[in-house]
């Protein structure tokens, strides 16, 4: 399809326009779309990477004023001391350089994760056997405590007593682990 405007280049920008309730289809090439002001420079070659770094920029100062303040400059000077990646680089690449970057940029990560993962910011899945240590036990303990609460609410006291014993057992294991570490 040719561009409606110049009728030379292929149309790559397609949209429908509604003016006074009249709907019309518009097909333009990128050049004419820009000329006519339908597209701003920033939207050129919009890729997934841009999309990501766009998300990141969101978090760096919500207002122009803030973006000029010193906190903004400090934030951009953030650099991972393990792999050398700066926050600026992270934003433009959309990729972490190493596991330590997660710690270095931690204060900025929640808004990013929330956007990418439907509001979630903490892991709720598998825990590695070795590296995870006693995290397994801790998560089980949390789970059991929730269940105990439910059982008590439902007045299922016999079940609740069993659950309480299991919790005690876990707590004992955890305190022994700690003793081992020390």
């Amino acid at each position, binding site marked *: 399809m040719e561009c409606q405007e110049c009728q030379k280049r292929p149309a790559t920008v397609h949209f429908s326009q509604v003016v006074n309730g009249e709907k019309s289809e518009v097909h333009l090439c990128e050049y004419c779309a820009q000329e006519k002001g339908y597209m701003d420079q920033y939207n050129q070659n919009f890729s997934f990477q841009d999309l990501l770094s766009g998300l990141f920029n969101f978090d760096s100062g919500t207002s122009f004023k803030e973006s000029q303040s010193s906190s903004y400059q400090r934030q951009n000077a953030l650099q991972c001391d393990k*792999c050398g990646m700066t926050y600026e680089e992270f934003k433009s690449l959309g990729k972490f350089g190493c*596991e330590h970057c997660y710690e270095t940029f931690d204060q900025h990560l929640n808004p990013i994760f929330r956007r*990418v993962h439907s509001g979630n910011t903490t*892991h709720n899945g598998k825990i*590695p056997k070795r*590296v995870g240590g006693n995290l397994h036990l801790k998560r089980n303990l949390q789970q059991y405590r929730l269940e105990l609460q439910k059982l008590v609410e439902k007045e299922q006291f016999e079940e609740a007593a069993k659950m309480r014993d299991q919790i005690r057992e876990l707590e004992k294991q955890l305190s022994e682990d700690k003793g081992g570490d020390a």
Partner: protein
Amino acid sequence: MSLQQFISKAVSPWLKEEAEDSDIVLSSRIRLARNFKEYPFPIVADSDKLKKVLEVFEDHFENQSIGKDAKLELIRMTDLEPIEKRVLVEKHLISPQLTEHNDAGAALISQNEQVSIMLNEEDHIRIQLYYPGLQLENALDYASKIDDWLEEKINYAFDRDRGYLTSCPTNVGTGMRASVMMHLPALVITQQINRMIPAINQLGLVVRGIYGEGSEALGNLFQISNQITLGKSEEDIVEDLKSVVKQLIEQERYARRRLMSNSSIQLEDKVFRSYGILSNSRIIESKEAANCLSDVRLGIDLGLIQNISKTILNELTILTQPGFLQQYAKKPLKAEERDVRRAALIRERLHLEKM
């Protein structure tokens, strides 16, 4: 090499098995992204560090077995010719990204080609494995076992709050991408799929064409996968995906029955025209081939075409890719030459069925 031999080498053994719902779901895949704690991620690491990653696998996992039939062979990207790399990509055993740039890229691939562990791709480790049909739980189970096995020797980058740490923020948490490949011709013919895709997207799932991001659905094949990796457990992610896939299967079956009862002669015509094209054409582009193959597969599923094996869609979809055509021809081919070869290969393959 005869075509029969070539096919038997080209099609991964796991793909030939029949499984539950395999008339609509061609395959289930689980991918886990993992990284070493000690080394920077491949995007910034120098090649010395990446070679250390490779060494760990050479020392502990190369030529080891994970269950029966699953001896792992380490394939280094530097040892492969461009066509060989392309063939592995077309078999979905490695990603295009792995074949680019770095000299420390490698893959541990099991003999039956069900398991492939990519090394030094975007992350240090990408475990991926396939099952025929809809078997996401089995795939997750197996992937998790391999993950545990690797963890015995590797200190994973893991954080109690963020989970498995990955190079891209879109993978953090479980590091898991679960996906299924579905053949949905009736939903495409009845144009219902266009309404369904936005609804599926709202559930945190992504619908793509067969060759990944941005690709259009060639031959009515769709890949459906989870978008969210943080905050949900692996089991929940798989369960959510499975329930959507189950509904799509139901809808597709229903649409097929409706088509058969309302417009069976039109459907039969479409199927046999495509069969005619595949059996007789002398030049065929990949897009046309994919669409005709989809029709023929639908015809087989509906019992309109008999005496052709169901696996023909899976087989020929892979075999008619540029890399395979060139491997079969044993030389690089121009696009026009490939279209001629493709037509010949399909005719020959269909002829095998008649014998």
